[in-house]
């Protein structure tokens, strides 16, 4: 078929226009990168609030002329996760990308696409923080930022009403012991008041399962062992037995749960350092929230983050320098003061800026000292493999099914076993 010159021209223009439209949609939005004479721009992608204030970043820019640091904040960790995996190994990631421990196991599958942390700084962090981000070849790929050592938050007015001690050191002494002890005091409380002791089986389970070294997967083979692990079943039964009378049945992060933080629906909850901000932000008029230096069955960690440097970035060396600087103890303490992100760097624990830090909302509780003690009490680094997130998610749903009365304990467990069997 032959086209006349005019129609050919029209066709060319038409297709060129449509291709231009398409490519415009695909081209990267920002042209991040270098200007002339040695000027470089480094991007740092974080989420929620890492405590990296403009002043802190300015400090780095002043010390390193020719470097401009720009921070992009995603609203939630989930947004950051979606962005991370869509662009990892391709283009478009920031020079320094923050990741959260929840999806660290997924990141570890692609550890070869990330730059290795130089070995001279690895002793900066707690051992278990480093171990979790070290791959099978011994490469550490994450610069640890914060951790979430857990204490117990409680409502002193509700404790007083039940005839329990209200002072935080006495409460710590009262709850000292294992989980059975925690639920035993809970039984006392509910017997005295008829009210709930903790918020939900799910959040309490989270604290318990994070003390199990290999809960869902075999650390050597990576196979899913969750359904056959008697430790998991014991915890499941223990928390649900207690939950029948002691739980407020408020699923964590639900609208009802946020309302419960403020209206005294429950007397205690497990409290990582970052939870303090959640409580004070959602229970503004309440003056009786307090935090005790104790955690059932030893220490526990919930959450925390790392900075990673994608290996195919434009300025890998400069980005590593920046990540190194941001995760140095001095800067992490400043971040803690700004946003409550508790340091994972051992040297920070002896710094008075941290240990003498108090929180006015929690009635002047010495939270710096409390969470330093809580961090030192953490002795188990739970193994979390590729499927940890999915198995745990299914477990949380199993617990919710029992709590909201959809199923009984056994039926819900059986369904969970079936769901775990389908994972992979």
């Amino acid at each position, binding site marked *: 078929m032959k086209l006349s010159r005019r*129609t050919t021209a029209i066709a060319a223009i038409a297709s060129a226009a449509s291709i231009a439209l*398409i490519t415009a949609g695909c081209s990267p939005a920002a042209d991040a990168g270098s200007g002339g004479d040695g000027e470089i721009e480094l991007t740092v992608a974080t989420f929620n609030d890492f405590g990296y204030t403009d002043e802190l970043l300015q400090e780095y820019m002043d010390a390193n002329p020719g470097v401009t640091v720009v921070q992009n904040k995603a609203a939630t960790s989930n947004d950051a996760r979606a962005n991370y995996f869509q662009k990892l190994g391709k283009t478009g990631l920031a020079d320094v990308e923050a990741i959260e421990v929840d999806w660290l196991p997924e990141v570890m599958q692609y550890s070869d696409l990330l730059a290795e942390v130089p070995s001279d700084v690895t002793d900066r962090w707690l051992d278990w923080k480093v171990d979790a981000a070290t791959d099978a070849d011994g490469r550490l790929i994450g610069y640890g930022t914060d951790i979430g050592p857990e204490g117990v938050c409680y409502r002193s007015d509700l404790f007083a009403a039940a005839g329990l001690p209200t002072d935080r050191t006495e409460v710590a002494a009262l709850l000292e012991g294992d989980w059975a002890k925690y639920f035993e005091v809970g039984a006392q409380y509910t017997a005295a008041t008829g009210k709930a002791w903790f918020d939900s089986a799910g959040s309490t389970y989270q604290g318990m399962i994070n003390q199990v070294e290999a809960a869902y997967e075999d650390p050597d083979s990576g196979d899913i062992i969750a359904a056959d692990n008697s430790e998991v079943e014991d915890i499941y039964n223990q928390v649900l037995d207690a939950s029948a009378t002691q739980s407020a049945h408020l699923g964590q992060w639900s609208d009802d749960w946020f309302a419960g933080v403020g209206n005294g629906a429950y007397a205690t909850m497990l409290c990582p350092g970052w939870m303090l901000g959640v409580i004070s932000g959602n229970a503004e008029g309440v003056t009786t929230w307090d935090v005790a230096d104790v955690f059932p069955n030893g220490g526990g960690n919930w959450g925390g983050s790392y900075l990673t440097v994608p290996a195919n970035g434009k300025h890998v060396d400069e980005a590593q320098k920046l990540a190194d600087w941001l995760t140095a103890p001095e800067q992490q303490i400043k971040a803690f003061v700004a946003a409550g992100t508790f340091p994972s760097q051992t040297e920070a624990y002896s710094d008075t800026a941290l240990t003498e830090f108090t929180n006015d909302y929690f009635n002047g509780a010495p939270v710096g000292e409390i969470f330093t003690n809580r961090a030192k009490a953490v002795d188990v680094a739970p193994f979390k493999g590729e499927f940890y997130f999915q198995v745990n998610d299914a477990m949380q749903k199993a617990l919710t099914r029992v709590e909201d009365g959809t199923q009984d304990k056994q039926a819900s467990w059986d369904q969970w076993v079936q769901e775990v069997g389908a994972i992979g």
Partner: protein
Amino acid sequence: MTSTATAPPPPDIRSDAPDTGPSARTPTRLAFGQRRTKWDMKLSPYLYISPFFILFIVTGLFPIGYTAVISFMDWDLVRGTGEFIGFDQYVYVLTQPKFWIALRNTFSIFLLSSVPQLLLAIFIAAMLDQNIRAKTFWRMGVLLPYVMAPVAVALIFSNMFGDKYGLVNTLLADLGIPAVPWHSDAFASHIAIATMVNFRWTGYNTLILLAAMQAIPRDYYEAAAIDGANKFRQFLAITVPSLRPTLIFVIITSTIGGLQIFDEPRMYDQYGTGGADSQWLTITLYLYDIGWGQWNFGRAAALAWILFLIILAIGVINLLVTRRLVRDEGSVRR
């Protein structure tokens, strides 16, 4: 296309051509112009609409085809590589109890939202079609919820449907009715989600139906009134039959929208994964969770294709029903 030789020369040239020499050459030159014009006439329309179709091929057809390819693979999104595994992903999806629950939920929410929504929309449209004061105000008013972002609507309604401290249950308690377990009972959760959908889409459908109602010739009503038909009889005998083609359009669009419902169930609780017992897990929500929750794009692609086939099947059913209805409608008008 006809060839140049058989094309008859234009009459004006043939009539005033005294010399055969130039006239023999002139037709060929003009014939080329003609041919060009004919090509132009035939091709131009296609060229003018081609940008849309080129765009569609690149952004629509290609992804659909590529999704089919990926659905036969164990796909690694980050590395962009996959291993061919045949129909395994389809078998996996179809053997999951969750898939069938999701299918049930999708249809349940679709019916709970579409049916009351259409009835309500017809009723409101009929009211707005009457002689009322401040017509424009009321007409704009019904469209207002449609302007709101679905996520914003879902956030507000999710808060209202809280199990313990939600507005709806508090009101019910004041009336002495026991609290409804909005987040654990499947049917209750479907009603809550359908409410969000209805809130947003009733006004939109009302306006479309109102436009159709206003196109009905007023003579019919006058004639009916003279014959002694009351308002209700007029509505049943004139308005409803005349609305049929519009109703078919509204039903088809709400079917497509209903089968792809995502925002509302996603925002219904704090996790966005369809509830502890998959009470309000819809097909698209399940697809999202497999793709972006578990990063299993091979499996998500297989589910996407299954959804595509379901919509296609329902589209065909819609088409058959539509044809029947349209024929019926012809016989009604006589």
